[in-house]
């Protein structure tokens, strides 16, 4: 029998100016996931000029985390092929993103200026998540 899963998420962002002015936002939630067949996690080298596949097309949607492990080059992350006009984020060295997308697009990434190693997870979610 297929297993069920719980994804626990916590996110924080703060921004500060040189005058000491600071603002922050945070959030936390869980996704209870049933009846899915695709959990992708690991590291992948994403070349310049071609799409590295983070996750094949899910049946309903996905929760995505991608981190740029390179020390110099930029990583572009897409929902769909890079030609499909769905750029989720642009990650400089060391940066990450997290989004939830309720669509059936693949998830791809490509390096800019050189091959970039991406750390990632992409968890398929169902209609109840």
């Amino acid at each position, binding site marked *: 029998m297929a*297993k*069920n*899963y*719980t*994804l*626990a*998420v*916590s*996110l*924080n*962002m*703060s*921004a*500060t*100016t*040189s005058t000491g002015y600071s*603002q*922050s*936002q945070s*959030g936390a*939630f869980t996704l209870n996931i049933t009846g899915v067949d695709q*959990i992708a*996690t690991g590291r992948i080298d994403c070349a310049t000029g071609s799409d590295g596949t983070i996750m094949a097309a899910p049946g309903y*949607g996905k929760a995505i*985390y991608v*981190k740029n492990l390179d020390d110099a080059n*930029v990583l*572009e992350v897409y*929902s769909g092929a*890079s*030609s*499909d*006009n*769905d*750029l*989720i*984020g*642009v*990650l*400089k060295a*060391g*940066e*990450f*993103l*997290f*989004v*939830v*997308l*309720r*669509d059936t697009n693949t998830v791809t990434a490509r390096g*800019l200026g050189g091959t970039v190693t991406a*750390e990632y*997870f992409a*968890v398929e979610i169902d209609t109840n998540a």
Partner: protein
Amino acid sequence: MATQSLTVTASGSFSLTDSDGNSVFSYSPSFTTATEVTDSNHMHTGEILTNGTSATTINSALNNKDLVYTFIKNVDTDYVVTVIPDGDIIAHLNPGECMFSPVHVDGAGDASNNLDIQAATAAQKVQYLICDGKDTGINTDD
């Protein structure tokens, strides 16, 4: 000449557990940007009620459309909220869910200016924090 100098720190914690209590994975990323003067004009936070189900712009005219660090949280109780920079959907957030991404609003170098949110079915409340980052220089097809 005065300049604006901005620094962003982001962190997260993500863990997946199966129904037997086994840990599948756990990640705890974080980063802090260099203090940037270039392309830095505006950082702002707030809570907004979407304009019904119409696209509602949350970035400002002063924000750098080539890179804005973006945190968005659906703080309402009823319907999904879609996050749409440059006409493309980058997140669907159910009530209580949040996202974070360094967003390239002007993906096509086509002078797209808007980072929008859009609620399904009826107006929803959203909280956000948006802060300029330094342009990466990319000019992709989006």
